[in-house]
């Protein structure tokens, strides 16, 4: 039984070796130096994409907020929303709205700073 198995293994070994020893591909393999440079370029591209992601996110948040405000204005029959803001008895609505805008601005600035820091860090490497 053992001999049979051994014969089979020898035959399979012979087959795979024969296939391996068949003539190599005619096409040239890529130059490793070129591959290395390409890998570095791809890495830099990925780093740039990663660094700009917070800016893009903030951009989308700002756009969504703006769209929301526009929709609210459109749905409130023109200036009635502004009138409501001005005439608000509590006096808190306007400061809250302003702080929301400031928060949005701060978010964009923070995202920009983070992106700049990421790029600088990648550049150091």
């Amino acid at each position, binding site marked *: 039984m053992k001999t049979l198995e051994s014969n*089979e293994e020898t*035959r*399979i*070994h012979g087959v795979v070796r024969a*296939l391996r020893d068949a003539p190599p591909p005619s096409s040239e393999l*890529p130059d490793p130096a070129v591959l290395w440079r390409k890998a570095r370029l*791809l890495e830099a591209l990925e780093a740039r994409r990663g660094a700009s992601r917070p800016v893009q996110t903030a951009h989308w948040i700002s756009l969504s907020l703006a769209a929301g405000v526009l929709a609210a204005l459109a749905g409130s029959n023109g200036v009635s929303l502004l009138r409501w803001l001005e005439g608000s008895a509590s006096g808190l609505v306007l400061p809250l709205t302003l702080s929301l805008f400031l928060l949005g601005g701060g978010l964009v600035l923070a995202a920009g700073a983070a992106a700049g820091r990421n790029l600088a860090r990648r550049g150091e490497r």
Partner: protein
Amino acid sequence: MIVDVALGSSLALSGAEPVSVTQSEFETFYRETARPLWGYLARICGNRALADDLLQETYLRFCRARVPASRSEWRAYVYRIGMNLAADWWRHSGRRAAETLEADVATPEGRGGESDLILRQGLDRAFAALKPRERALLWLAYAEGMDHREIGRALGLSRGSIKVLLFRARRRLGGVLDRMGIGPEVLS
């Protein structure tokens, strides 16, 4: 088209902290392994052009990855990347494409006599009749001379299962060869 492949934590082959490869290390390693890896990819995928693409993508990923600290593990690591990329291609291209060895990988003419050529083409067909994983197992074991541990790492399988899978792959290829009338005496 080659899509992204999650290499997963299983690629961390040893406990040592992974390292980044330097350009000179990469170039030396590439010269040692590129041609055998191309042969392996061409055999398991059955397509020369695809093997070219997979080879390039494999080494691009290798360059950018944090590789095992031990250089002896790099070969299994790079074969694993190649195998994952090939598996990803199979998933996206369908089973039939995966199990059909294209004629362009088959032994070209112009070497040896006519009987030798016919024999080689028969071997090509027999090998092509196997499943991709069986081809990979046999190729790594007998063409690359990897031991069970290294094959397990390259294919993402446990070392214990390699012996059984290899045995089954051998029996399957043996059966195909028998049906084609290619006995041990023909190969000697």
